[in-house]
């Protein structure tokens, strides 16, 4: 890490980007509460905060996706921009974005991707590809990158793709500001690093420094405290929609960042975790590994609810699907009440036979079919059980689903409705009930309460608690620290695919979980 980098504070003219009194509400929910911050010329400005802190809302306001509440003022180089920001014109205003998914088209060449904006918008009837490739080559040479302009983007490494996306955003800015070089623009990098190896991050940072050296400003959005400390000059921390602080990075310690992200008020939350008594092991996982994860080993006891969490990209969210045999290329061994089998040969079919159930996070893509009825969605795993003398009937399916959904508190309890007609919370209750009726001995959940309202959330927690009491082991992957602290007996923290901490008993608080997540990043060499 570069110690004591001198802050490149601009000495001339207005700030590159100035945001004043920005508020954004979604219904009654305040996502951003009177946020004001400024990004200086030639500065790398970090934007930090945990999930739900308002980071993404802020970025989306800048990109023109959201309309801020009246009263906000956003200025670029001293000039107010119209609000809401006109999405298609952000580039001309001097803003360029690189989102986490990068926005590249894998089947096209590097050059085609680099000039995508121009190609998509300009009418050019005589494109000379050799000239375009040459121009692209010159651009990469200027940044000291060795990218082959003719290469298909799908064949680039993850790092190269990220670099290409950043170069493209920078070039777009440079073209847009060609006639006003004194306003070089602001580049917004929205979580570009979580899936990159360490060496790739270094390379990416090198590129970011080159961009600011020529006068552009960069907003660097991240979860990762160490990366923010390494690359930024100043950083702004958001929490629950409030601006907590803007700090000069070189003067701020790691601890101080974590404190601001997590907040001290959490100390008020006492651990809700119940001590877990039984020692009878249900599942014993050894050497679980897959691309980007592991190897990790852990055990789950009867009646135990174990949480898994970490920062984005740490791999914890893959564990439930891997233990269910839902992804190819899984290695390791799962021993279920003494019967062990290789994870490489596990399939969902086989997992279900061994009474393992898995509820994916993608509610309407993987967990349930929105166009089919609630009744069929619930009855799918137990069709054989509810056959009558004439086989399955709609009435039989509906009666069964009505009983199951009634117990789960699904409202309205109308099995004939398509699943799409239910609210997020009620759809989740129904899909949870689908698996609970199979009486699993190992229940795997991925973000079970994402997008679920408060009331439904409590009902789902209660249902999980009851299921654990019957002797099932439950594994929950989630980034909702509050949920983990209240629901789990034990929480495993992941970083870079490995378990780096285990919290239980009195240590299991929202505060501790968050602290360990942000502290668990390997220190840069």
């Amino acid at each position, binding site marked *: 890490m570069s110690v004591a980098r001198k802050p490149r504070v601009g000495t001339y003219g207005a700030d590159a980007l100035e945001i004043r009194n920005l508020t954004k509400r979604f219904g*009654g929910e305040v996502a951003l509460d009177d946020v004001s911050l400024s990004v200086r010329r030639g500065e790398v400005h970090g934007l930090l905060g945990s999930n739900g802190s308002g980071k993404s809302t802020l970025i989306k306001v800048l990109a023109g996706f959201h309309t801020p509440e009246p009263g906000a003022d956003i200025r670029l180089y001293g000039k107010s921009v119209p609000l809401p920001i006109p999405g298609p014109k952000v580039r001309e205003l001097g803003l360029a974005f690189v989102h986490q998914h990068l926005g590249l088209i894998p089947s096209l060449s590097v050059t085609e991707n680099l000039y995508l904006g121009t190609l998509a918008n300009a009418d050019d009837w005589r494109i000379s590809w050799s000239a375009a490739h040459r121009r692209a080559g010159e651009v990469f040479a200027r940044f000291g990158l060795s990218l082959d302009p003719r290469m298909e983007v799908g064949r680039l490494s993850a790092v190269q793709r990220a670099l290409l996306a950043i170069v493209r955003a920078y070039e777009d800015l440079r073209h847009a500001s060609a006639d006003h070089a004194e306003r070089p623009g602001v580049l917004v990098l929205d979580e570009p690093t979580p899936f990159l190896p360490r060496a790739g991050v270094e390379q990416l940072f090198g590129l970011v420094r080159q961009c600011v050296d020529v006068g552009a400003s960069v907003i660097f959005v991240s979860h990762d405290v160490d990366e923010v400390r390494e690359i930024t000059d100043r950083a702004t921390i958001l929490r629950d929609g409030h601006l907590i602080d803007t700090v000069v990075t070189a003067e701020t310690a790691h601890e101080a960042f974590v404190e601001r992200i997590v907040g001290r008020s959490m100390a008020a939350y006492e651990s809700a975790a119940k001590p877990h008594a039984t020692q009878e092991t249900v599942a014993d996982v050894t050497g679980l590994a897959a691309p980007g994860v592991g190897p990790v080993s852990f055990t789950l006891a009867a009646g135990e609810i174990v949480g898994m969490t970490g920062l984005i990209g740490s791999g914890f969210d893959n564990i439930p699907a891997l233990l269910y045999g839902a992804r190819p290329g899984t290695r390791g061994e799962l021993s279920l009440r003494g019967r062990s089998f290789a994870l490489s040969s596990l399939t969902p079919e086989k997992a279900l036979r061994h009474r393992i159930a898995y509820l994916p996070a993608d509610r309407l893509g993987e967990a349930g079919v929105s166009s089919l009825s609630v009744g069929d969605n619930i009855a799918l795993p137990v069709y054989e059980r509810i056959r009558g003398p004439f086989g399955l009937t709609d009435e039989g399916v509906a009666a069964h689903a009505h009983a199951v959904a009634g117990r789960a508190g699904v409202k309205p309890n109308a099995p004939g409705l398509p699943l799409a007609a239910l609210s997020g919370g009620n759809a989740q209750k129904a899909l949870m009930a689908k698996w609970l009726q199979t009486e699993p001995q190992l229940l795997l959940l991925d973000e079970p309460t994402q997008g679920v309202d408060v009331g439904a959330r409590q009902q789902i927690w209660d249902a999980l608690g009851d299921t654990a009491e019957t002797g099932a082991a439950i594994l929950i992957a989630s980034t909702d620290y509050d949920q983990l602290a209240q629901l789990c007996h034990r929480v495993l923290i992941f970083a870079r695919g490995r378990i780096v901490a285990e919290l239980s008993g009195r240590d299991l608080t929202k505060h501790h979980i968050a602290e360990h997540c942000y502290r668990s990043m390997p220190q840069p060499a």
Partner: protein
Amino acid sequence: MSAGRVNESDRSYEERIALLEEKIQLLESSMDRPPARAPGRDWVLWFERYGLLIAWAALIGVLGTVRPDQMFAWNSYATMLGSNAMIVVLTLALLLPLTTGDFDLSVASIMGLSSMLIAVLNVKAGVPIVPAILVAVLVGAAIGAINAFFILYFGIHSLIVTLGTGYFVNGVILWISDSATIAGVSAGLIKAVILTRVLGVPIGFYYATALTLVIWYVFQHTSLGRRLLFVGRGREVARLSGVNVVRMRTGALIASGVIAAFAGVLYTGMRGAADPSSALAFLLPAFAAAFLGSTAIYPGRFNAPGAFVAVFFLSTGIMGLNFLGVDSFVQNLFYGGGLVIAVSISQLIRGRRPMD
């Protein structure tokens, strides 16, 4: 940050939650009542289900006012029901892969090959009719398996694979028949398909009806049928719910080949001969009927009774127009237009979401 601010934000948080919960209560209580649906909604549903039957009756009525002696004669219908039996069977062959989310464009070719194989084996090679039929059906199954292999092992879109295999099979038909019509198929088959009549209707119609009932039962009243539907609507959901998606899709494609081959048996029996090209013309009518049928009886999903009604709705229209002396090109207009209109109607039911 001051302690005062924390408390304040905590309190407003509590307040917000209380407000939200109140709102949820309100929503829930308002949602608890409606399941006793408004009577108008039931009527719409009923109309959706039986609209095609009503349209069929209306079609007969309208054409009947112009040509009453032909349109209201049982004999016309007896002939029409019998001669469209193999289209019903061919449509049923399509339904299975369509339900699991695959298109099978090779069904008409399989029907043609089956028809030609029976004729070649029976007439030219002197093979008795029953073994000849068995060979034809087995070949149908084999082509279904080949389709499944390319679709599932290589992950190619079913449209491309079956377009290719269908065209390939057309070549095989021309090859084994020397591009000539082969007549003189065993009278036993003709008798078993068209000469025997029950209530004046050739017995082939009853085969098609029986098969319709079987497929209706499988789709509606067995767990297999429901799983097939899940495979088509949400492959990932089905897979993660323990359904063997590959086996289901393979089974549907092989069954499609077998049923299409059976349609070929009926086609040969109906005419006592096989020609190398006419079977291919039935691909579009079968698709039109499958999609039009998916707007009726069980609206929104491919279903056997709907397809059955759709075939006879379309063929009644064509029969009537023939009685009016309209040229034979009207058949193309009717089937082609029927397909597009049927899909448009089902898209309206689906709320105009793009098709997968």
